[in-house]
């Protein structure tokens, strides 16, 4: 076995330039493949994460410019199977510059932690006690280098008031990493009691009851001046991601094209390197190496090239996003993008297939070629 490995290694070094060029082109292609395919895979993962949720988003049917009356809360909370209700109002202010925006959301201090108990909240006790308290997502903390205990100013745009907030805690595990939540009583007081709500986040007792509760909520407010649209958290998040669906499709398509293109390139290289060695292969066979061994040797060689390229490309992509998430502020919302391990796996499988398939035909024909004729032709 070792002697075969050595032979494969020697063959790889035979035309160093070609081996290196092929490895680089495979690496570059799989680099871009991993990045592009991560995007849709990541979205699907977020959706899968929230699909088991027991939360409903009950929001206006008409548009974000048509908020719901806060008075709905009592009816929402009284609906059967509802465990807890937390309101959300988009304040949408600006921190320092216009480019420094992140969603600022006013919510119930008492119930927020119950509804979003899976979000990795810290500082909840303080949030319940201090009127100007706010909780900040980890990504935002990093982006602006904030720390717990700091006081920050948010300049209102939709609502012409400025907020002074005290950071009392963080949010670690939300689907988005870039937002801030503060107390709705502070919001109402600052803005002049508009009594509006953008979303009622409703927690139900069991996810099996979720469709039934959503239907009941919408039925309750049908034919009112503010009709609602209630959907599971997964459906809600999905409808938001579907808005960029075209880009996800294009990313997937390009990923596919890259794989086909790189397949062509690898097949070409394999064919070239095998063609050059026809004589040698004939000699080996006349010395008694069986066709099968020759075939496997050639395949293994191409596989080695593809896997080395794939490993390089994947680590580059992985490393790049690592660096980006450290310098989060450049990318804003894309901050949360990581390469899911499954994509790394996919990329390596693609590399393996490229290695196997590209060498298949030339290796097969080289291992079956008539020895005498080949030797005669080469000389």
């Amino acid at each position: 076995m070792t002697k075969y490995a050595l032979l494969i290694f020697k063959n790889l070094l035979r035309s160093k330039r070609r081996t290196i060029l092929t490895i680089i082109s495979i690496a570059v292609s799989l680099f871009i493949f991993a990045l592009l395919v991560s995007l849709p895979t990541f979205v699907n993962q977020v959706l899968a994460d929230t699909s088991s949720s027991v939360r409903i988003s009950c929001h206006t049917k008409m548009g974000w410019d048509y908020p719901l009356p806060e008075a709905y809360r009592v009816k929402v909370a009284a609906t059967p199977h509802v465990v807890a209700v937390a309101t959300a109002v988009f304040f949408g202010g600006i921190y320092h510059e216009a480019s420094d925006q992140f969603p600022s959301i006013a919510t119930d201090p008492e119930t927020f932690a119950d509804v979003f108990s899976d979000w990795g909240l810290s500082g909840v006790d303080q949030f319940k006690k201090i009127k100007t308290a706010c909780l900040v997502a980890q990504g935002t903390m990093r982006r602006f280098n904030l720390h717990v205990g700091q006081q920050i100013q948010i300049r209102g745009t939709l609502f012409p008031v400025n907020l002074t907030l005290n950071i009392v805690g963080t949010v670690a595990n939300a689907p988005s990493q870039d937002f801030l939540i503060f107390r709705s009583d502070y919001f109402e007081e600052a803005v002049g009691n508009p009594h509006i709500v953008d979303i009622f986040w409703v927690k139900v007792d069991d996810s099996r009851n979720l469709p039934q509760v959503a239907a009941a909520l919408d039925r309750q407010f049908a034919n009112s001046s503010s009709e609602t649209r209630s959907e599971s958290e997964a459906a809600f998040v999905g409808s938001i991601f579907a808005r960029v669906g075209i880009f996800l499709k294009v990313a997937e398509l390009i990923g596919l094209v890259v794989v086909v293109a790189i397949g062509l390139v690898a097949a070409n290289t394999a064919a070239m390197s095998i063609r050059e060695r026809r004589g040698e292969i004939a000699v080996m066979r006349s010395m008694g190496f069986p066709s099968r061994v020759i075939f496997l040797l050639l395949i293994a060689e191409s596989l080695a090239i593809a896997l080395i390229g794939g490993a390089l490309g994947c680590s580059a992509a992985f490393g790049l996003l690592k660096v980006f998430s450290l310098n989060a502020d450049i990318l804003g919302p894309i901050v949360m993008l990581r390469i899911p391990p499954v994509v790394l796996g996919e990329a390596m499988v693609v590399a393996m297939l490229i290695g196997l398939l590209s060498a298949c035909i030339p290796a097969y024909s080289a291992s079956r070629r008539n020895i005498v004729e080949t030797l005669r032709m080469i000389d």
Partner: protein
Amino acid sequence: MAVPFKYNWKSLFVRRVSNAMTAGGIALVVAVFVVAMAMVAGLDSTIKDTSSPDTMIILSKGVDSELTSRITLDQLDALKFLPSIKRDGTGNPLVSPELAEQIFMSGAGNSLDNLPIRGALPESLKVHDKIRIVSGRMLQPGLNEVIIGKLIVNQYPGCSLDSDLVLGRRTWKVVGVFESGGGSFESEVWADLHSLQDDSLRNSSFNSIRFKLAPDADVASLVQRMADDPRINLEAKTEADYYKEQSAYAARLRIVGLVVAGIMALAAIFAAMNTMYAAVSARTSEIGTLRALGFGPAAIMTSFLVESSLLAFVAGIIGVILALPVNGLSTKFNGVLSAPTLAFNLQITSGIVIQALAFAVIIGLAGGWLPARQAMRVSVVNALRRK
């Protein structure tokens, strides 16, 4: 003396399969480039600068779009008779207070689109002088009538001439379709300002004010006045500046597209290099013969460069043809949560085709450079002896 072009053309067919594979790889890269650029071009046209040089827009201070801006009736009253604002024949200022809102619509694949709806006055068309009704008529205020941009016709239920369109709390009648020579207005629904204020319970507030400048207006001092006057306290900018800010997102998208295409090009260059190195080493004796016939080293190098760019050029043409079906594909663009949904068509312009072919030739030249240099350095004696 240059090596005849015919030699390169014929050589490409000697190693048919290998060259076809390389060309296929390059063609796919070029196709991706074309699709990405067609998308950016389409998007560019939706945020195209359709500004008039004498139109300005007023927003709240420090906001980056109409959607997050809020202006009160008092502020409007304080500014509308400023002398730098143009008047019409009867002395009324050419001022268009506007509401810019968004309505949920179900888009493709369960997406929750934000259909932009604008509340404006009949007089607003004097400020928006590029808006033209292409079918139907202008809406009449107070009758729940709307006109729609030509890009959203048939894109959503009710979005066609003479249909009933349910938006917000009421049902509107579509009485006209308009165009604005490109730009985002063509993705919008336009309604009567007061009806829309009423429908969305906005009382008398606005999102933005557009106005025409008087011919002799001093823009700088007008901007200053609006910022400093405590009764106004707003930010005025030329419409052109506003569009420039709005296009920042598409500019970022263009960069992403170029980076993807660039990285793929890099892979294609290495692939082309491989093929050309193989071509050079397989033809060492031919090169020796050419040299012996009197062709100089520079002629040999040029010849190989011509060959690789020819290969890439042919691949480029194939790539453009592969990408052609996406031309005219209509799609919609959504930004983040609160951004308006813009409709646009993918556009393969002649500029993109030329860029794509140039892109292909660059791949060919870059991939052929080192192998061609090696070909140039082939020693005549050794090359011929080896045979």
